């Protein structure tokens, strides 16, 4: 009952009320998921279409092999490798949210916090150095998170594209002399996107819950890390609270996807 | 089997001296259309909307109509693959409508349909079934009748399944692709204990022989047979249950014309040997003309005309029947006939037209046709028509 009024109890791990702990950390998770979304959607769909068009050619096989290897990589193994290479060896992308100096500036009272997203707020404050620092810290987790999911999206796009390319209307378009470019981009791609949109729900779940392990590896203080720490320390209130929070986001996400679905599929819109 | 009373007032015609095997009484089957988040029922598809007819022992009744008129639904509901919305299905002088309901629902049905009327002091039986059940009610009381009708439901179900069998339309989907013919054929009889497992091979082999398939083929899978052979296997499956009635739902529609007549002739031979009764569901009037002894014509979930074959084909009284018949090709170039082309499409069974369902397409419709729904009435002996102006076309 209390949960319905927004009272999720006291978080031992966060040393504050659960809801406050979640809301305070959520921007870090959101920022990570948002940044990961672009490479996933962009690269996944682009390569999926490419592989389908070049079906059974070298490129198709190559893309498929990379995808299935990517799909087989546990996120924490991949994350550890990224951390080892880009931090231990190269020293480019350190773990954490921000460097110490930047953290101190961000915590100061006259630093404007509009969106609570580190990179955006840095730009709003005109602190390009902090923006770069935040970016440096987020690249590693973003690579890790997106690597797994573009493979997934690629597979879906490829198979759906292949199906559409074998349809009568695509053949008709070819037969009447429509340039191959237009066949693919105007006739096939738009129709192939319909099943892709339907799996977007699974992707939102994947990206968001994928943050749990990745935040632990890269030591980012998002809600994923909060949940993981709480689980290890048997802090029920916090674990339940975060799960509830994730579920709500998931349901909202699915709702948005249903709406997107209608945009892409005129048949749904009509009825 | 039948109560002697039942035939008393039916002596005027030879046909009616025969025993009634199946009587369908005002059968209704509606399918709900659901929509919205809560899957509310927004409308009903009136697939079968008050159908009544009888099938006598040993005859072949043709149930004919366009696709979507509800003829297949009648068959499926008869077999209780669909539960009827209302109406009664009477087999061999027993009401079987409640057989496939859970016990409490079956009890409610009996109370509603029989007991509530029997308890009324002014009760007058309307048919032989009433008479029979009222007799039991009088002698054994309410409990006695309930026991008679809903006792041993499981056994009644099994008997029903043995008595009525079906041969399906599609020879490809009607046999389980992952079972050997032997098991497909033996499954039913074994479940009913019609023969022992040790006899199975022998019985299955004989059944196959009877439908013209070599008994050694019983170890094959369905895909190793042609369409016509599969249909024969489907017939053998029905036959092994020793049924009284076989419903043939477009049983030859999917076959090549050359094979069609072979299968039809086989079925007619089997009918004689096994004293079978057929309900042939088809859209093909020429097929119906060839095999059936009586014909029931359906349009949009209702029976529009029913008569003996000879009467119906010589003098169709309903404009719809006449239109259907004018579409039968006649292999005689000299023969000139007037073709009646029906205008428009079959109306939706969700929103059937007011009045006579056929009036929007009827060439001879009058104002009354759009107002009043004609009931099925006996216009000539044993010739029933649901039309305000029978024979006007």
């Amino acid at each position: 009952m209390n949960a319905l009024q927004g009272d999720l109890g006291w978080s031992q791990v966060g040393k504050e009320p659960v809801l406050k702990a979640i809301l305070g950390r959520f921007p870090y998770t959101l920022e990570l998921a948002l940044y990961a979304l672009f490479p996933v959607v962009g690269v996944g769909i682009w390569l999926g279409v490419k592989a389908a068009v070049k079906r059974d050619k070298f490129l198709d096989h190559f893309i498929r092999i990379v995808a299935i290897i990517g799909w087989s990589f546990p996120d924490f193994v991949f994350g550890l490798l990224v951390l080892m290479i880009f931090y231990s060896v190269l020293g480019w992308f350190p773990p954490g949210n921000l460097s110490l100096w930047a953290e101190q500036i961000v915590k100061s009272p006259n630093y404007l916090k509009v969106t609570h997203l580190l990179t955006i707020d840095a730009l709003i404050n005109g602190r390009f150095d902090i923006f770069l620092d935040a970016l440096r810290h987020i690249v590693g987790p973003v690579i890790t998170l997106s690597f797994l999911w573009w493979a997934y999206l690629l597979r879906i796009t490829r198979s759906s594209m292949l199906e559409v390319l074998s349809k009568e209307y695509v053949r008709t378009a070819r037969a009447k002399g429509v340039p191959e470019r237009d066949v693919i981009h105007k006739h096939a791609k738009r129709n192939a996107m319909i099943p892709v949109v339907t799996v977007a729900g699974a992707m939102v779940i994947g990206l968001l819950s994928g943050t749990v392990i990745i935040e632990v590896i890269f030591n980012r203080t998002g809600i994923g890390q909060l949940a993981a720490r709480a689980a290890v320390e048997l802090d029920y209130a916090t674990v339940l609270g975060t799960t509830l929070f994730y579920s709500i986001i998931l349901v909202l996400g699915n709702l948005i996807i249903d709406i997107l679905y209608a945009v892409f599929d005129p048949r749904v819109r009509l009825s | 089997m039948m109560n002697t009373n039942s035939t008393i007032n039916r002596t005027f015609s030879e046909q009616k001296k025969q025993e009634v095997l199946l009587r369908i009484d005002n059968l209704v089957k509606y399918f709900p259309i659901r929509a919205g988040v809560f899957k509310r029922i927004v409308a009903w598809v009136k697939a079968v909307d008050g159908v009544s007819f009888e099938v006598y022992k040993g005859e072949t009744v043709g149930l004919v109509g366009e696709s979507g008129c509800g003829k297949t639904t009648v068959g499926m509901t008869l077999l209780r693959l669909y539960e009827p919305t209302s109406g009664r299905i009477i087999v061999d002088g027993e009401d079987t409508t409640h057989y496939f309901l859970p016990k409490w629902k079956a009890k409610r049905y009996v109370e509603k349909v029989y007991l509530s009327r029997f308890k009324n002091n002014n009760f007058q039986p309307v048919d032989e079934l009433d008479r029979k059940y009222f007799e039991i009610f009088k002698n054994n009381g309410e409990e006695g009748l309930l026991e008679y009708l809903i006792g041993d439901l499981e056994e009644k179900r099994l008997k029903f399944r043995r008595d009525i069998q079906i041969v399906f339309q599609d020879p490809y989907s009607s046999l389980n692709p992952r079972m050997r013919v032997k098991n497909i054929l033996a499954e039913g009889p074994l479940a009913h204990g019609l023969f022992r497992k040790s006899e199975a091979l022998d019985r299955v082999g004989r059944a196959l022989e009877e439908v013209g398939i070599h008994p050694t083929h019983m170890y094959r899978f369905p895909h190793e047979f042609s369409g016509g052979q599969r249909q024969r296997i489907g017939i053998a499956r029905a036959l092994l249950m020793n049924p009284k009635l076989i419903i043939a739902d477009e049983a030859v529609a999917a076959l090549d014309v050359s094979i069609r007549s072979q299968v039809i002739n086989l079925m007619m031979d089997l009918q004689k040997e096994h004293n079978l009764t057929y309900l042939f569901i088809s859209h093909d009037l020429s097929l119906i003309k060839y095999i059936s002894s009586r014909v029931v014509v359906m349009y949009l979930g209702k029976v529009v005309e029913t008569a003996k074959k000879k009467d119906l084909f010589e003098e169709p009284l309903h404009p719809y029947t006449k239109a259907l018949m004018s579409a039968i090709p006649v292999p005689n170039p000299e023969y000139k006939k007037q073709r009646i082309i029906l205008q428009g499409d079959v109306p939706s069974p969700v929103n059937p037209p007011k009045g006579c369902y056929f009036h929007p397409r009827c060439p001879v419709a009058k104002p009354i046709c759009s107002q009043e729904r004609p009931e099925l009435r006996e216009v000539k002996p044993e010739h029933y028509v649901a039309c305000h102006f029978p024979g006007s076309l």
Partner: protein
Amino acid sequence: MSEPKPRSEFRRMMRKLLRNPSAILGFSLLAFFVLVAIFAPYIAEPVNPQMLDENGKPMRLDNPYIMPVITWSSEPIPPSKEHPFGMIQGRDIFYGVVWGTRTAFYIGLTVTLISTAVGIVIGSISGYYGGWIDEILMRITDVFLSIPFLLAAMVLTTILGNGLDKVMIAMVVFGWMGAARLIRANILQVKEEQFVLAAKALGIKDFFIILRHILPNTIFPVLIQASMRMGSLVITAAGLSFLGLGAPLGYADWGSMLNFTRNWILGTSGSSMTYWYAVFYPGMAMVLFVLAWNLVGDALRDVFDPRLK
């Protein structure tokens, strides 16, 4: 109306399967792991070299799945002739990788089998009976699906307590929905096939109709899906171990071995790849194991169910 897939095609399919290079790779990898799991006691002898019995021989371990602590130095020790994969937290990585194969099979197979079975039962009931039973079961499925799998497993393990068996229970509880939905969809399709209606008309009992007529015609995609899920299940279990929720400390489990490694990597900026072996060997074992299942699942799907390509 479509011609059902005949059984004589089985051979043709096997041939097709063996012509597919990625299928061969997948099956060989899988065979390799199976061999490693079977012969684990011979590949990595379950003895503790620190503890000798009266004859001066190393003592056998009571529980071979608990990796013996060989040295008290907790810092990772690079590969040597004695310990080809190196050591971490005083334990031999080679030993852990070999015995971890058994753990992976144990977790993956048990969870997949049970959750698929649960899914098949729920999906079959839902699809076959339809109506309000279907409605209720599918709403329950939706609720379970609306909780992210990893978090749901985390919640349940915090409630049940840590441990491998608890993780497995959690993964079964939140892992049956995919199979249930798939089998339900397939049953809805097969249910209207005429041979099912014919069986009903013959008076065959519902249980046998499902068992003899419906499941044999619907189960293939479910089994393929299950083999493809093996990989992700093993990842999830290892992920939970990695977070410290699954296998107990020192258990021969790839995920918990990587958990040891994490702290060493985080603390070593710029110091080159000192501890590469501690990530590489257990990590590679996992990747290849999951890859094997994914390749096998993919190949089976291509061959048996061209629709799903």
